[in-house]
């Protein structure tokens, strides 16, 4: 090949540019690799790899989407909260404590709506939060929930906040690391009521001790 011809060099540059354009971006390459190198197992299907609108926005914007998109997504998440038909938001705090302590469920070893051991799914709340006064083996990924009701008041508005936050944390902070327990159908309505009571019942050790 004779070098030096401007036309040849221009043609070469165009080919190189075209090649560069054909190279997938790291994100596209990663998506393709994940699609190929993951497989469905048990209840964990390949659909779990597909980003929904919240995940897509948080991934695209490094967990910091622009204000308008943030507000739109939060509103949509809040609108999806299913409120209890009987209007009661609080269940039994003793059951709530058990749900908070247990962390199993929703993995590929678990069953639909049940852990691998045949128990109800847990919330795994102590993985990330300090909650009651008797458990020192708590995680620090989320803020302390100790004295939750005592510090904020026991009114219905706070109850609604607690219930909906557990149901769908993204309704309040769209890129929060907290799972959307109701939205993902990880926890049932009764379980979320019990957790709300754990945080909001004045008799719960969270508030009373």
């Amino acid at each position: 090949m004779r070098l030096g011809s401007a036309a040849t060099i221009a043609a070469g540059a165009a080919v190189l540019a075209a090649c560069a354009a054909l190279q997938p971006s790291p994100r596209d390459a990663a998506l393709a690799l994940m699609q190929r190198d993951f497989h469905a197992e048990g209840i964990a299907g390949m659909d779990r790899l597909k980003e929904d609108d919240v995940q897509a926005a948080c991934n695209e914007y490094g967990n910091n989407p622009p204000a308008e998109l943030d507000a739109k997504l939060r509103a949509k998440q809040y609108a999806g909260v299913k409120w209890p038909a009987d209007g009661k938001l609080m269940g039994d705090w003793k059951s709530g404590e058990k749900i908070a302590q247990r962390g199993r469920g929703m993995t590929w070893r678990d069953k639909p709506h049940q852990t691998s051991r045949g128990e109800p799914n847990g919330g795994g709340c102590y993985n990330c939060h300090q909650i009651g006064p008797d458990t020192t083996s708590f995680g620090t990924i989320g803020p302390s929930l100790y004295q939750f009701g005592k510090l904020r008041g026991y009114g219905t508005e706070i109850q609604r906040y607690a219930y909906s936050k557990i149901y769908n944390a993204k309704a309040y902070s769209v890129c929060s690391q907290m799972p959307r327990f109701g939205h993902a159908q990880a926890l049932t309505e009764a379980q979320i009521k019990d957790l709300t009571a754990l945080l909001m019942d004045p008799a719960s050790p969270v508030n009373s001790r």
Partner: protein
Amino acid sequence: MNKSLVLGLAAACAAALLPPAFAQTEDPVAADFDKFRAVLEQDNPAELWEVKGEQLWKTPRGPKRASLEQCDLGLGPGVVKGAYAQMPRYFADVDRVMDAEARIVHCMITLQGFTYEELAKKPFSSATKTPDPVSITTYVAAQSAGMKLAPPQSHPKEKAAYDVGKQIFFYRAGAYDFSCASCHGVDGQRIRTQPLPNFTSPAQAIKANQGWPGYRMTGGVMHTLQWRLNDCFRQQRFPEPDYASEMLSALLTYLTVNAQGQEYKGPGIKR
């Protein structure tokens, strides 16, 4: 409110107020576990698998009745010393980046005649059985003890693997919207009482490699990074990664390159 809770809260408050660089070491809960681990590291049962792995490396086995002594781990056929510290790396014969265990599996297939299907069927240790790749990986890793991690980033596919691995690390998905970064992308947090090193930080990224392969006290089993990544994705409520896949090699590239230049002390011991 009891005294230990007050202490725990005080420690947590102190940790929160300290600048990020110190937050990791100030956790008194973690300090106790570190002490326990240091005592046990003196006679680590992992050494039993180093011995077993060496036997498996040198013994002619499989349908081809060959040893692994011609296996090229990146430094030439049969060169084991220092190889683990320089992985993942690109291998021309397969035109892809491979981590150590993926490469060992590849050698078991090509040199000894085993199949991927049989090696991938039950690739992780149980109380009664340790799969051969796990023992061999433990042996190979031990031959890099005391060396600085130096995964190469010269080949374009090695660089691409780093970038792809980084994408995977930050990719939020699954039923709980978790990414690897949800737990391992921030300084100073812990899950229950287990400290979560920040793998994006060069100083802490060593903890993604140090201690693996590791003898896990829980169950008395030997585990490698292939197991650790598998179990991470399980807890992330993702689908299951393919054993020894290119995707896991990319993720391991990201994690190991972040820790480059730091000393790998060899197989460790875990809770």
